[in-house]
């Protein structure tokens, strides 16, 4: 049997979860609608696991293994902040987004939204959660239904949740939303293919804002856009965050953009969190070898500062999540790997050598041999 909780101990240094025990659906909805103070945890993820079974057989399916897309990750999202999640393809970051959106069912673990485990909710309570957690998708060309007008797309949230806006009010609301994201409200009857990528992503953002959510999960929201348009969309998202008091989970592979927009950053590798901390801690004082390699590999648009920087070029590719290495998952590509790394799974915790220190290096890092190394500055 697969072990669904690889991190047997609860990850330290994440805030205490105040579980709300809602006896009735009304109580659950009330708890979901309750406001959260700025800086308080709004979303608490604990030991989240998602394994996709690999099956064989045509009529009778037999499980022959599992893709361990997400394998026990824990983090908090605080009200009003942006948490960046970075990692390469196959690290599980998009699966995390789907789990938080309850688009996938978690294999194990909990996601507490205001003290309620959303992986166990259903009915009205789940609908209330869905209203409050929205998503912006990566590809603006595929995330809008080509057969619907912009007005129908942005208005659809109101049709699904009619309690948010009365029928007569919807057209006006949609036009307001178009205005908020910087599009001409007169475009309401046009179809998605009449817009450019950047404009489409604005439509996607307007749809995400329609229900006045508290959290927006952004899965690579600008990676499909042109460079000159990326900055516009990032600025728009930052402005909206202040205006509507939103909390963002910003999933991306572009480390520069993540640094720009995030307050805290988590680095994922093969379904696990390798390192998490504030943006300064991660970018200026990384202690996990993977983070260091990732940062050093980023092409920097400045040949001068580039030449002074040390580059760590990793060998090989990311191993398959269906058959991850034992112990530390990064050990097969790590230059520091020793026997211990193959045997012991490193816990995501403040490394012992930095314990109690004030240094920015004292943040959670899942490495047996965590060591500070600045690879970003020349």
């Amino acid at each position, binding site marked *: 049997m697969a072990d669904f909780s690889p991190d047997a101990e609860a990850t330290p240094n994440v805030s205490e979860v105040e579980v709300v025990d809602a006896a009735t659906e009304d109580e659950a909805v009330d708890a979901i609608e309750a406001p959260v103070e700025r800086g308080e945890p709004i979303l608490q993820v604990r030991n989240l696991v998602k394994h996709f079974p690999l099956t064989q057989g045509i009529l009778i399916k037999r499980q022959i293994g599992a893709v361990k897309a997400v394998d026990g990750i824990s983090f908090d999202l605080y009200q009003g902040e942006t948490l960046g999640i970075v990692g*390469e*393809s196959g690290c599980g970051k998009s699966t995390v987004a789907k789990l938080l959106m309850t688009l996938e069912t978690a294999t194990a673990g909990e996601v507490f939204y205001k003290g309620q485990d959303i992986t166990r909710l259903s009915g009205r309570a789940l609908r209330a959660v869905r209203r409050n957690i929205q998503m912006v998708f990566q590809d603006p060309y595929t995330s809008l239904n080509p057969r619907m007008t912009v007005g129908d797309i942005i208005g659809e949230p109101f049709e699904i949740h009619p309690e948010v806006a009365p029928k007569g009010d919807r057209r006006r609301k949609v036009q307001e939303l178009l205005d908020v994201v910087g599009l001409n409200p007169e475009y309401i009857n046009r179809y998605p293919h009449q817009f*450019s*990528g*950047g*404009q489409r992503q604005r439509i996607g953002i307007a749809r995400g804002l329609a229900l006045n959510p508290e959290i927006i999960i952004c899965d690579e929201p600008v990676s499909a856009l*042109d*460079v*000159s*348009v*990326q*900055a*516009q969309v*990032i*600025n728009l998202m930052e402005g909206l965050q202040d205006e509507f008091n939103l909390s963002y989970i910003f999933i991306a*592979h572009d*480390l*520069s*953009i993540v*640094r*720009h*927009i995030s307050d805290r950053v988590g680095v994922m590798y093969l379904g696990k969190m390798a390192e998490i901390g504030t*943006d*300064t801690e991660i*970018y*200026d004082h990384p202690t996990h070898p993977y983070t260091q*390699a*990732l*940062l050093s*590999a*980023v*092409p*920097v*648009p*400045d*040949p*001068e*500062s*580039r030449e002074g920087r040390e*580059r760590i*070029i*990793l*060998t*090989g*590719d*990311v191993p398959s999540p269906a058959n991850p290495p034992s112990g530390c998952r990064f050990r097969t590509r790590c230059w520091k790997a020793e026997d211990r790394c193959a045997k012991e799974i490193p816990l995501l915790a403040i490394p012992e050598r930095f314990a109690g220190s004030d240094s920015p290096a004292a943040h959670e890092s899942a490495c047996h041999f965590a060591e500070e190394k600045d690879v*970003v*500055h020349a």
Partner: protein
Amino acid sequence: MTITDMPANVPGPRSGEDNGGKLLDVRDLHVEFHTRDGVAKAVNGVNYSVDAGETLAVLGESGSGKSVTAQAIMGILDMPPGKIPQGEIIFRGQDMLKMSSEERRKIRGNKIAMIFQDALSALNPVLSVGYQLGEMFRVHEGLSKKEAKAKAVELMDRVRIPAAKERVSDYPHQFSGGMRQRIMIAMALALEPDLIIADEPTTALDVTVQAQVMELLAELQREYNMGLILITHDLGVVADVADKIAVMYAGRIVETAPVHELYKRPAHPYTKGLLDSIPRLDQKGQGLFAIKGLPPNLLKIPSGCAFNPRCPMAQDECRSEIPALHQVTERDGAELAGRASACHFWKETIHG
């Protein structure tokens, strides 16, 4: 004022000894597409050149015409709807646009090879990697099956695919993205071409793999003293490997410069805006500068300078007159080698 409409030829730091004849010289190339909505002018008079051993980076966003130019050079443009109304593509002194299709076919793959962004769709899924690599030798050099396979293994070794001998009979889908891109590179290298055109070769790859592939490409280029045209939208990738850069916008080259110069002192507002709109990795900036507006519709490119609706410096002149590619000089008038800018106000842009 000096006006250079000639291709800016920068002797790059890595270029080889022979600087006499250029390897590839693109002159005043125009490409248009006839669509049901009108004529899309994808390339509007592009000039650039590459020497042996030199890397030219062509930088631009989608619709800038950077890929279309490359396709025109390779002769793989879909015609119709594409059309080349004017221009010359001179390879080793011969205009390829005047050649017969048979002559061009001989150059393609043999003398000029191309690497694509998506290696998975550029490789044939039902043929083994070794077969596809060996095909080059069987077709062009008439080697036997066995010899071709041995050559394939050798090539795979050269692009550092581990266990090449064991993997030569594997199929494309059995390789990871990075490995597939290496196979594409091996294929491009097979006949030791003089020029490689790489169209967004690392865009689909992860950062850590990207670094490996770019490193490999640069090394092989040095080893074979090939010319390399690197087409990309990523200012970071360019900074790493290019000798000189040509920035394209709406089918025109708006700025050319040696790589260090461009980042230090851009001479075109578009380049400057692009550089400013990229967040930095080594420090947390405040607001991000954003170029306003959208890339132009190629069916109706704005009159005058195509960038004028988005440009913070635009004046009346910019709306009526297409700026020529001006030679960029220091304040005292000393010419900056290989630098040119298609902006009426390049002086103000570079010297502030």
